[in-house]
């Protein structure tokens, strides 16, 4: 399918040829898991779940016939930004694209997995003999045949501390055969990277040691068991090393100290025998905090902290982009695209932001919400995809997926995950939905998904339930209800809650009786109250000598003859009990 997509990239008729090919690839990739289980799930799962805009759905939608399930509402209008995702048994600590972009190496603890870059299916597993070390840094050789991994001993107190004295090891595998070519015990943690112009040299960057007065890096030959070439850069301050890479035999990296940032650009001399490398260019910049990254094609460098993102031209310290975080902090990392035209970073929400290099500055290009939260991200070599990795796994994202979400400095309202509410009518024919703290309740037809009623609640919604022909809402001041059919005039028992009380919208609870005639609800220490249809409301006083209790949760009891109230007590000496309550 990838080949078909590449073949049809010809001038003219691109829409009729390329769109079905691209959509078919996306269809197969998206539903690979379902289709690989059984071909019949093309019709049972894949086609019913394909978005309305999918070419495959338009072509074959008439064949959707599943005797087992029917999706009434919720079919997306278009493909989302995530083209593939894969959970991980353990935290993904690092990941890297192969130079050709056809595969991805993923480091999870002691195991390295090589995965297909379209489906994220596992191609091979590379296991390191040092089981007590965890993968920290990965690098493919320029020809893609070798994979180097730097493993470090887990040190939860300070894994990157300059006082690191633990074990570190570099393993180099032949990716085709899975055989280890060489294992090298190295002198410390840091980063590992293949030389950009050699398939046999790897460099281990070491952190700066205050006593050494220099940065050190060790250059190893992966094919010959020789002593490493050790080199260093003299420096008089206590610095921390930032980004770096090798290109055509030169190094670039950034350093920082409390006095300001320092950039050392284009150090050549890896072939020299001297232990101190000559410095080609040095720039001082005013900024000294944040995770560094360099543009591969220009003198642009980025700094990302939890509070802001800054891109500047290190030659003149001119700021090209400065964005402050809104409610959600940035993840302190960033990455330039291989052609230097784009810069990506993300927030903890999670959301990914892409900025475009507009020659004189950087402007917003797109931003979108990925499926999984992440701790690292990078563009593919072909720039057709973005890979992210983190605790919950890896995912591939389409960078061209434009979004209408405002940029991060305006996006305060969209940064928080909303709490949504759902309630059924007793006959199951209607479904009510609302958003906590919002003022609208939507009622839909469960069979067709068509809107049935829209109720303006005029006050904050904390929870909803449907009781016979009435929809009930716990609001910030009491219980309110409407006629389900007409949405007519509201009735309620207001003033149950003190208006001056600050109510945590997540701390309210409702439970519905079996015959749908009664509701129990509570908000924090207020309640529980029992409401019976017919305007009677009762406060349940729990027998607790230690004072008022806070209702943590209300659930129907397993035997359906009582309520479980999970409560807390104010006494410091008593544990929080489950208080079974049987009326």
């Amino acid at each position, binding site marked *: 399918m990838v080949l078909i997509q590449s073949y049809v990239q010809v001038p003219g008729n691109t829409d009729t040829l390329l769109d079905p090919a691209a959509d078919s690839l996306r269809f197969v990739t998206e539903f690979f898991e379902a289709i690989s289980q059984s071909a019949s799930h093309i019709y049972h799962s894949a086609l019913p779940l394909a978005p309305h805009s999918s070419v495959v759905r338009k072509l074959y939608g008439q064949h959707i016939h599943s005797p087992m399930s029917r999706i009434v509402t919720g079919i997306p209008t278009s493909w989302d930004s995530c083209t593939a995702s894969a959970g991980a048994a353990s935290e993904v600590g690092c990941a890297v694209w192969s130079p050709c972009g056809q595969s991805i190496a993923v480091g999870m603890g002691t195991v390295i997995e090589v995965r297909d870059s379209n489906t994220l299916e596992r191609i091979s597993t590379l296991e390191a003999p040092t089981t007590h070390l965890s993968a920290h840094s990965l690098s493919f050789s320029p020809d893609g045949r070798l994979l180097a991994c730097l493993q470090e001993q887990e040190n939860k107190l300070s894994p990157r501390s300059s006082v690191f004295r633990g074990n570190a090891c570099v393993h180099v595998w032949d990716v085709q055969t899975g055989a280890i070519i060489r294992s090298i015990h190295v002198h410390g943690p840091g980063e590992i990277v293949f030389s950009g112009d050699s398939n046999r040299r790897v460099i281990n960057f070491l952190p700066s040691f205050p006593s050494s007065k220099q940065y050190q890096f060790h250059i190893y030959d992966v094919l010959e068991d020789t002593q490493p070439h050790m080199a260093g850069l003299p420096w008089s301050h206590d610095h921390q090393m930032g980004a770096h890479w090798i290109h055509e035999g030169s190094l670039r990296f950034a350093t920082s100290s409390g006095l300001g940032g320092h950039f050392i650009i284009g150090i050549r001399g890896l072939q020299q025998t001297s232990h101190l490398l000559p410095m080609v260019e040095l720039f001082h910049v005013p900024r000294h905090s944040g995770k560094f990254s360099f543009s591969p094609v220009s003198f642009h460098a980025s700094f990302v902290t939890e509070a802001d993102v800054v891109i500047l031209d290190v030659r003149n310290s001119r700021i090209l982009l400065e964005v402050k975080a809104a409610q959600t902090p940035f993840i302190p990392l960033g990455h330039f695209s291989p052609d230097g035209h784009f810069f990506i970073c993300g927030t903890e929400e999670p959301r990914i932001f892409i900025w475009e290099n507009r020659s004189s500055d950087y402007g917003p290009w797109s931003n979108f919400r990925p499926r999984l939260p992440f701790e690292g991200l990078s563009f593919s070599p072909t720039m057709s995809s973005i890979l992210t990795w983190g605790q919950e796994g890896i995912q591939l994202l389409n960078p061209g997926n434009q979004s209408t979400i405002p940029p991060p400095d305006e996006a305060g309202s969209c940064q928080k995950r909303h709490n949504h509410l759902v309630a059924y009518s007793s006959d*199951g024919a209607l479904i009510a939905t609302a958003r906590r703290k919002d003022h609208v309740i939507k009622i839909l037809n469960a069979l067709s998904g068509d809107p049935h009623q829209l109720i303006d609640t005029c006050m904050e919604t904390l929870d909803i339930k449907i009781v016979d022909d009435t929809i009930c809402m716990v609001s910030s001041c009491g219980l309110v209800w409407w006629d389900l059919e007409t949405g007519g005039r509201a009735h309620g028992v207001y003033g149950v809650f003190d208006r001056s009380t600050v109510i945590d919208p997540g701390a309210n609870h409702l439970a519905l009786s079996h015959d749908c005639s009664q509701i129990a609800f509570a908000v924090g220490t207020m309640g529980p109250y029992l409401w019976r249809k017919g305007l009677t409301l009762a406060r349940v006083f729990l027998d607790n000598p230690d004072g008022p209790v806070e209702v943590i949760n209300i659930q129907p009891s397993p035997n359906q003859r009582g309520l479980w109230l999970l409560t807390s007590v104010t006494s410091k000496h008593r544990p929080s009990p489950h208080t079974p309550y049987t*009326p």
Partner: protein
Amino acid sequence: MLEDGSFRNVTKEPLDSPWPWVNLFSCGYGIQGIGSKEWVVDSKGTKLLWLPPNWRAKNVEDVKWNDNFLAFLDGQDPDPIIIQFCP
């Protein structure tokens, strides 16, 4: 206080009558869904529907069964996702 400005006393009621409570969180057809797994399966283990990652347990809110209907919210779209399972 009612909406017309009048007040209604909150009465304390005796609660000695039988008062069964319904469990809203299970389906009468033995269908198990929206768990941590990738599939909705019936009581015999037959895979009825594959769930996209954003419809799986940790990504959805307020999952409710009603007979053979399942409704939940995926945390992003304000409208619910409704699926009818045919027993």
